[in-house]
């Protein structure tokens, strides 16, 4: 137990560092964000993490890419939580002629590979930050809706909900005032795990060249650019790989830990 706690707090600490890095990093180092300096510099006093194949500062680009990734991820997850709660509530409280198609649609969207739909949307629209955000938002909510629905089903017949209803409270009021506060913890924990998925999808799209477009830096595109010369110059490849993997790992780990704390039933797997 003790050891698991230490690891959990290490994860939290790392995520806090990533957040600081994304918020303040671009202010600390921004000289060679898009214009080059000496190419393939090893880490030194001027370029803390070295420079890439065009001489751009890796620290600045990592920080800026991280900021963009987090921004996209948080926007998408905010949408997913909002829309997931709405669809989840509809799936429980709406009359059955609305409820059934909504549930079927949610299940179909949940089962289908997210990235395939995202590719279709971006492909027919255009690459860029906004299309990526929209495409990932459209595919992000079904998991949340299913979670909200299962929680609502187990909470809606509790005594305090029935009491509130008997006192004349509307469905919306009961959900917002009495049920939502009960499940907001678990929703945030799952959103954290989903945030890892969103960041992964975003960097995947950027890696294959249809996400965030150059010269705007992103972790996925940095990996794509650096792989060409990875044999002779592995440094520009190592940093984004390391930061991306560790961020995703930490988000999963901390999210899982949070969920296990809040919902003992799910912590077993």
């Amino acid at each position, binding site marked *: 137990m003790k050891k698991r706690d230490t690891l959990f707090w290490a994860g939290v600490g790392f995520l806090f560092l990533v957040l600081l890095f994304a918020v303040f990093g671009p202010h600390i180092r921004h000289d060679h964000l898009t214009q080059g300096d000496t190419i393939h510099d090893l880490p030194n006093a001027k370029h803390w993490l070295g420079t890439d194949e065009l001489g751009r500062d890796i620290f600045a680009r990592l920080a800026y890419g991280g900021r963009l990734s987090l921004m996209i991820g948080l926007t998408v997850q905010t949408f997913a939580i909002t829309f997931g709660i709405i669809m989840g509530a509809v799936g429980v409280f709406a009359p059955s002629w609305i409820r059934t198609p909504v549930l079927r649609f949610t299940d179909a969207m949940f089962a289908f590979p997210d990235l395939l739909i995202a*590719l*279709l949307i971006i492909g027919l629209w255009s690459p860029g930050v906004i299309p990526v955000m929209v495409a990932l938002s459209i595919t992000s909510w079904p998991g949340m809706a299913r979670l909200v629905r299962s929680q609502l089903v187990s909470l809606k017949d509790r005594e305090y909900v029935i009491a509130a209803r008997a006192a004349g409270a509307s469905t919306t009021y009961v959900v917002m005032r009495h049920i939502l506060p009960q499940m907001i913890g678990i929703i945030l924990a799952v959103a954290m795990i989903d945030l890892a998925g969103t960041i992964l999808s975003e960097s995947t799209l950027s890696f294959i060249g249809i996400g965030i477009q150059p010269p705007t830096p992103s972790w996925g595109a940095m990996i794509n650019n650096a792989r060409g010369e990875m044999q002779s110059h592995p440094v520009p490849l190592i940093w984004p790989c390391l930061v991306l*993997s560790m961020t995703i790992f930490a988000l999963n780990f901390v999210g899982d830990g949070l969920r296990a704390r809040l919902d003992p039933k799910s912590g077993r797997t």
Partner: protein
Amino acid sequence: MRLAKAISLRVLFGAISLLFITFIAFIADEIAPGDAATVAAGEKATIAQIELQRKRLGLDRPWTVRYVEMLGNLSHGDFGKSYVGTKEPVADIIKRTLPMTARTAFLAMLVAIIIGVTMGTIAAVYENRLGDRTILILSTLGVTVPNFVLAPLLVYLWCLNPNKFAQFVSYGNISELPMNWTPDRVAPDFYYLLIPVMVLSLRPMAMLTRLTRASMVETMKQEFIKLATAKGVPPFRLIVGHALRNAILPVVTAIGTSFGFLLTGSFVIERFFTMPGLGSTAIEAILQTNGPVIIGTIIVSGFLFIFVNMIVDILLPILDPRIREAQV
């Protein structure tokens, strides 16, 4: 009889899912800027010329008519023509690129199932011991490390020899790559596919490992296993014949889902190893805003996904009498 009914219901559901994808593709195409008329009219066309083309191509008709027409065309394999280059029919492009993707994906799935189930079983048998811990850590890494991080890492470790490196990292000369399974070409094919398949199978492998472990741990605690142990069933038969046989069902279900990850993973892998498959074709089409090719490749990928899930769902009642009984 029940089984036949369950299967036909599942096929019907698969058909509806397929209809759903074509509809999403159609809507996305409608909303997107630019259409076949703007392409046909050329770059310097006036608005009147574009309108003329629109009439000629029948794009001025209501969307319902055009959607039904699209379904009709799709049903006999007509995906339209590519906007760029030689205006090659999309069906031909798919015919050329699908075998590469399908082969890599199914091979990776096979590797993932075999190794994943084995590792999961081993982990469950040695629950909370060193082997279990190691497998658990490895599988956690497998789920979280993106495949485009893993691919360069593996290539780097594998091919420290520069000649080998060049061979693995690029399928540059497409014409050299055999597209048909002929006995004399199988060996070089597998050689080329080694690293892509390894990278691609890792994530589903890790997912199946975790799932098999969880399911096996649960099953090993049940009464009938205690009974079988007491009866003196030899360990291997106990684990494989009694426990795994019962624990495998959630794993089979998960194969469908992990195939989705594998499919999207193949987009990345094909891009990374410049393999001429469905994924790299789709990405190229996206970069050229080549509508018909995008829609064609995504629909075919979606079809693969639905097909695999359908097979899995049909397999379940055949594997498990309990589900067979429960189905009406």
